[in-house]
């Protein structure tokens, strides 16, 4: 029991931090700019592939620096020449724009790097088990991921607290002209925020790429889980996203470790019911549905607390 709890907690925290790493950029973009950026995972993928390519040429550490800068620059360009023009047509237009972008990026990556997974490896100096608990290894690379997530969290928190960018962006969402009249360069700030958001996505890509699968459909496979993190955490709240990541990580991990089902609780169904569709529900284990629990959480949170856990505004 103790073993289970310790291991699950550790795994949950690690997974949660991986989620936060991937979602941090989305928090910045979605909750600050209000852009439902469906191409976020594509920038994550770009980060992974840039990371792969650059680490081939110059090694992992330069890649960790250069790839996000590149992806951030692309993101900023996307904002400058695309999203900015679409912005006035509302959220749906922005969303479709990013949809189209995601399509195009996936195909372009496929054209350049092919469709089979590339051999993107973690740096050798991190390729050792950091510690072992109950005969399970925890590799140093995972600890590195954890550390980066925490660093990003703290850095973002400080950046948003210290600078007034968050306030300016929030104000500019409703009254862009007025913010301009007060002497703030709204357009540049939007571009900056989008660039930083995409760069963060790329950081996640560079780091997660080696430990996950770096492939041209990795963006599509990530699915909407990142939105879940941001929305559950509460729009506009970075700590919210952090807590939501942990919560989802733990929830999912602990759920995986539970084999219980209705059948194990109440015994198997009678023979006349066993053949019906009830049987499926009856025999589903918690572990089996663990990965869809975040979505359940999302729906429930939005119904009962539409602001999210720590959110400050509803939409």
């Amino acid at each position, binding site marked *: 029991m103790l073993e289970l709890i310790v291991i699950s907690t550790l795994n949950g925290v690690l997974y949660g931090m991986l989620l936060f790493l991937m979602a941090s950029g989305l928090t910045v973009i979605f909750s600050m700019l209000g852009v439902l950026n469906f191409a976020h995972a594509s920038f994550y993928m770009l980060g992974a592939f840039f990371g792969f390519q650059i680490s081939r040429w110059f090694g992992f550490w330069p890649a960790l620096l250069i790839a996000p800068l590149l992806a951030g620059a692309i993101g900023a360009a996307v904002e400058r020449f695309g999203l900015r023009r679409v912005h006035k047509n509302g959220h*749906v237009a922005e969303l479709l724009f990013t*949809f189209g972008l995601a399509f195009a990026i996936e*195909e*372009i990556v496929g054209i*350049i790097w092919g469709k089979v997974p590339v051999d993107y490896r973690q740096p050798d100096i991190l390729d050792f088990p950091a510690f072992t608990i109950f005969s399970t290894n925890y590799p140093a690379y995972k600890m590195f991921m954890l550390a980066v997530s925490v660093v990003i969290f703290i850095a973002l928190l400080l950046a948003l607290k210290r600078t007034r960018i968050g306030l300016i962006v929030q104000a500019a969402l409703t009254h862009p002209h007025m913010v301009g009249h007060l002497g703030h360069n709204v357009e540049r700030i939007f571009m900056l925020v989008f660039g930083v958001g995409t760069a963060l996505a790329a950081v996640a890509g560079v780091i997660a790429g080696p430990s996950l699968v770096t492939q041209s459909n990795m963006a599509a496979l990530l699915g909407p889980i990142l939105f879940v993190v941001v*929305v559950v955490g509460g729009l506009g709240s970075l700590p919210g996203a952090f807590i939501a990541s942990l919560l989802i990580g733990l929830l999912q991990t602990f759920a995986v470790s539970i084999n219980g089902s209705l059948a194990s609780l109440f015994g198997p169904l009678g023979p006349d019911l066993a*053949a019906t569709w009830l049987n499926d529900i009856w025999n589903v284990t918690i572990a089996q549905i663990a990965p*869809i629990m975040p*979505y359940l959480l999302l*729906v429930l949170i939005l119904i009962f607390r539409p602001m999210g856990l720590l959110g400050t505004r509803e939409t």
Partner: protein
Amino acid sequence: MTDLASSSVAPPRPTLSDRMKFYGIWILTGLVLLVLPKVFSSGGSMTTFSLVGISIIFALSYNILLGQTGMLSFGHAVYYGLGGFLAIHAINIVGFHKWPIPLPLMPLIGGVAGLFFAALIGWVMTQRSGTAFAMISLGLAELVASSALILRSFFGGEAGISANRTKLFKVFGLSFGPQIQIYYLIAAWTLIAIIAMYALTRTPLGRMCNAVRDNPERVQFVGYDPHVVRYIAFCFSGFFAGIAGALAAINFEIANSAYLGAVQSGTVLFAAYIGGIGFFIGPIVGAIFVTVLSLGLSDLTQVWQLYFGLFFIAVVLFAPGGITGLLMMHRPLVRAGMLSRMLPSYAMAALPTLALCVGLMLMIETIVHYTVNPNEDPHIQAFGIPFDAASPITWVTAAVLIVGGFLLARRAWSRVGETWDTTLTAARAKVHAL
């Protein structure tokens, strides 16, 4: 107030000729649907038409939410899919028991299923609007799509549930085996659904939907509960989505988890938006466009997804009102009979734009050749045009077309903008003067 005064203040009632025109359009549509298979008779075009019909209903049902009531849903396929599954089960059960229910009524079962689930889920969902609603729909869609693989006896797991549509009670001796009969079945239902959904926009409820979209707060102060308005709209939307799903199930004789998936939900959003959510016919245009594009593009090029993406980006950037919006912009000009003034500048702009597009395609296809199929014969074909990817002439042509096309197109389009402004002002003035 005398009747006379009020009728001069109120918008004029449609004249007889207006009304004739209005009904004429429907009759004409019906006729076109009737003769279409005579013109294009191959099995493939029958399938295409059937699919277009289905996606028209689906896109219109989606627009009840997005365009009319202002609700962005990421999970509309849930009702489409459940409609499809229920219809498949119904076909199987009805066929098994030999009940005298003919196939043409099956879409109703799908519709009722869609309605039922929309009514069930909708009440809590429609309490929220905006992003919260969108995100709930996203989460819910994920849940339903995932459970489709878990609840195997109902959803048939990954393989889905199949049925045989010819095993039902026959009316008028129709077996509904051949695609042509299915085409007519779908065409009839499409027409009915379009008319019904159009009529819906012209009812008190339809108007209140628009009001809720514009300003849900104020709606409360004219006596309406915006939640209820959203809910009813949601139910209708589920109903028609269910009909579309059932038709799809009849067409393919199978329902599987792909019906419920994110791709389906995304496609309908695309279709509605690309067509133009601000107009009733927008989603119709969009559905035709997107269906034909997604069926045809993959035959023309290997990297169709790239073109698909670029196309959507282009539409969102340059035609924010969708294709219909682009066309409708010209209405004042047509009314003033001044459309012809725009045509020369359009022609001027179209040429370099086309060049730009061709150049881009040439470049993309050449690059694709070198990265994806490097070992193959460089004499390749894209969009039916053969060219030699290895020849420097191709590269130079592509470069010239892109750079030249871009520069000229930019100029020409700003010219178009100017002509547009003056023509529109003139047209407005002319119409006012009348």
